[in-house]
């Protein structure tokens, strides 16, 4: 049951606005492709190799002019395959070595191209579905972990060291392991290759590193009788490619949020919204859960004032996600406990904000991020702040709790920091297990009034964004107080307008909603029973209570 008695009409009003905002972005997305999307398309066909020190997919895509690329790599691949019987991988190798040249390819009819490429596309999409199935079965086999899930970060720079630290975290109770990427990997326009042992402030995301961590977590998970979720980053300039690699290596969560890239990594808006759409199609099909980065807004802006931005961005992210076929259950929308501890009743306001997010997105696995802005070198006080954060997570029943570290403001967490943090989080979650069910908030008290004002402010902000358009709104500094230019930022040169005959059969398959390859029967039933319409669903939106029993929520009068 709802504890905040939020105005359901206002919530649906917000969704309508967010839907309009998202569709306007989508109009532009649908007219473009990017170098990274085309590289991801090749990766979907199994092209993982490195060639002369650079990824083969980069070599192949860079060998086409932007004008030629506007037809889509599949068009060229189709023409090549129609005349050279071979696998996509060996074809790519021959192209990279200059043994096959695009300008010397004989013409091929549309039919011929389709005949040679469609089976490849179907197999690729099937492979994504198999990954979804594998994860679902593994999760079911190990039983449900108690909530909130405890999400821990490792970041040594060396994948083998990461494995050791992750294992230790799992043995101490961690449910999700995220490997932080090396500083500024998001700005590389290629994905590094192979196992890596050196990085700055994190470990490179490579397919081999994914494989190593997945294997280790499967092993330790089996020993512990828990399924361990493995997390990485589908963000930055290689967003779509990392989504493919993560899907093939059976990762569970991916940080995936264009808004984050634009605001905090200065990546070009057009590039990253276009990339994000393709990556989310891949993610949707492979049963991965995205994590969005709204928590970061509260690092540059004050939480009490800026929280409506978080809600606004979550609503937009949800609508963009739906347009890319993500289910609500795949949207780990982010927010954070970042209020200034000097504010009186900050605990109540944090609860109000966290509960608001939970109630507005009842079916989404919300991800709650720990304090960073007000963490200091005082690790003892930091531990207290993290405890309050954990308490709010428990009382508002967050799905994913990224555990805070006492040494947040100092250095990468030491092994013992993670241990301390896990131990206290486990205590809080256990001690406060039933607290949420016992609590109701005073009808006109501070919690409910704060929730109401956050929703109202988000509604106002959505109106503003809708009027200006999302790209313009970002350039006006409406989010995180960061100003970004639609034509500025990194990666714009990698955006290509699609040719009227742009060809990408994988994209077409992923865009089809009735395409159910690789999904289990149960999943199919689940999806069949839900409103799968694009855009906002005002009114009769089906809601499930969040494991509290009780009847489904009703819109309030």
């Amino acid at each position, binding site marked *: 049951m709802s504890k905040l008695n939020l105005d359901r009409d206002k919530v649906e009003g917000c969704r309508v606005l967010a839907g309009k905002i998202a569709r306007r972005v989508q109009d532009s997305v649908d007219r473009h492709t990017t170098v990274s999307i085309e590289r991801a398309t090749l990766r979907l066909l199994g092209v993982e190799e490195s060639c002369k020190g650079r990824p083969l997919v980069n070599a192949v895509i860079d060998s086409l002019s932007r004008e030629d690329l506007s037809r889509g790599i599949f068009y060229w691949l189709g023409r090549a395959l129609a005349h050279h019987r071979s696998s996509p991988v060996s074809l790519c190798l021959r192209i990279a070595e200059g043994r096959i040249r695009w300008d010397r390819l004989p013409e091929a009819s549309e039919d011929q191209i389709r005949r040679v490429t469609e089976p490849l596309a179907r197999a690729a999409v099937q492979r994504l579905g198999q990954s979804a199935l594998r994860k679902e079965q593994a999760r079911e086999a190990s039983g449900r972990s108690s909530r909130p899930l405890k999400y821990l970060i490792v970041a040594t720079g060396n994948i083998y060291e990461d494995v050791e630290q992750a294992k230790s975290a799992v*043995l101490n109770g961690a449910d999700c392991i995220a490997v932080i990427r*090396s500083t500024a990997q998001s700005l590389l326009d290629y994905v590094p290759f192979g196992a890596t042992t050196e990085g700055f*402030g994190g470990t490179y995301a490579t397919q081999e590193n994914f494989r190593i961590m997945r294997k280790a977590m499967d092993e330790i998970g089996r020993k512990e009788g828990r399924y361990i979720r493995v997390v990485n980053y589908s963000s930055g300039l290689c967003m779509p490619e990392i989504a493919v690699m993560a899907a093939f290596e059976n990762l569970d969560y991916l940080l995936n949020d264009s808004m984050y890239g634009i605001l905090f990594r200065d990546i070009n808006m057009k590039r990253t919204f276009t990339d994000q759409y393709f990556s989310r199609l891949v993610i949707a099909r492979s049963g991965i859960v995205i994590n969005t980065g709204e928590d*970061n807004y509260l690092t*540059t802006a004050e939480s009490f004032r800026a929280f409506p931005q978080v809600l606004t961005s979550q609503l937009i992210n949800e609508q963009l996600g739906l347009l890319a076929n993500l289910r609500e259950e795949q949207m780990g929308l982010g927010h954070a406990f970042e209020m200034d501890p000097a504010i009186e009743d900050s605990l109540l306001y944090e609860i109000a904000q966290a509960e608001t997010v939970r109630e507005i997105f009842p079916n989404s696995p919300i991800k709650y991020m720990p304090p960073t802005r007000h963490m200091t*070198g005082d690790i003892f006080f930091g531990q207290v702040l993290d405890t309050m954060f954990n308490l709010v997570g428990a009382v508002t029943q967050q799905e994913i709790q990224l555990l*805070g570290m006492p*040494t947040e403001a100092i250095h990468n967490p030491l092994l*013992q920091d993670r241990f301390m943090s896990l131990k206290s989080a486990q205590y809080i979650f256990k001690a406060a297990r039933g607290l949420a069910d016992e609590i109701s908030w005073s009808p006109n008290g501070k919690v409910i009034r704060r929730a109401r004002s956050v929703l109202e402010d988000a509604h106002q902000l959505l109106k503003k964004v809708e009027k200006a358009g999302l790209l313009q709104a970002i350039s006006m500094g409406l989010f995180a107080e960061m100003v970004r230019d639609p034509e500025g930022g990194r990666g714009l040169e990698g955006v290509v307008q699609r040719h009227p005959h742009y060809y990408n059969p994988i994209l077409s398959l992923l865009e089809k909603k009735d395409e159910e390859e690789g999904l289990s029967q149960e999943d199919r039933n689940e999806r069949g029973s839900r409103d799968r319409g694009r855009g906002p669903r005002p009114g009769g939106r089906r809601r499930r209570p969040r494991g509290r029993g009780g009847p489904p929520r009703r819109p309030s009068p």
Partner: protein
Amino acid sequence: MKKDLHKVRPYGDHLDDGKVQISFTLPVPAGPEAREAARVYLEKMGLTGVDVVWMESMGEAFSFFVAYGCAAATIDFTKIRLPKPEFPLLSLEDLLKTAHEKIRRKIVVVGGTTGSDAHTVGIDAILSLKGIKGDKGLEYYPVFRVINLRAQVSNEDLVREAAELKADAILVSQMVTQQDQHLENLKALAKLLREEKGLTPHLLKIVGGPRMDHATARRLGFDAGFGPGTKPSEVANYIVHEMIRRIHGKSESWLEGKGQGETPPKRRSLFGWLGGGG
């Protein structure tokens, strides 16, 4: 109880007991041998009366310890010398009056956080109107024109802005990074600042951050470094007085003035390590 400033030791619950608290991890499985190893190790570190009060297994191969011991070493507090920016600390009214008389125009301050971290809490504390803990930021001072470029400013952008705006002072906030990358980044910035011709000749180059101190800042080629706990009023005073000195020559009497005060500022990190991103 007689305190000897020539021989200072940690204070636990009485003078000169030398008590220190220490927590650490050993990469060995927990057990009686591990506990003994921890005790002996602390003795090797020079502690006496070692008491390992807590041991816990952290997975198969690691154990966590909390321990207390008495440190024998002493420190001569009277010999401690710490280079820091020297300037008088005037009240707001006096500072404004001084600036008005000696400078007669607004001082242009350009600030930002360089590198890839998104935390702006430090630079905002110094520059924004609100300031920190009741100490108003530079925007509050009518004598400053503040341009806060905020987070993730590249060195090139910072230098270009400083040149275009004819900045009198630049304030760089530097994040905590691994492998001392932030120092490399600051070195690169100092080089750019030396090479850029469009800057005002008297430009004040100031850095701040949780791992920053004056000596490091000087070594890297900056004029001043401010560490954790710095108040906006301190930075404001430094800028005004140093500006006057640079414009009017070195003869000002305040040079011989007293330092920043007797007690070192309370340590408080103004910055955070960003646990996300990548």
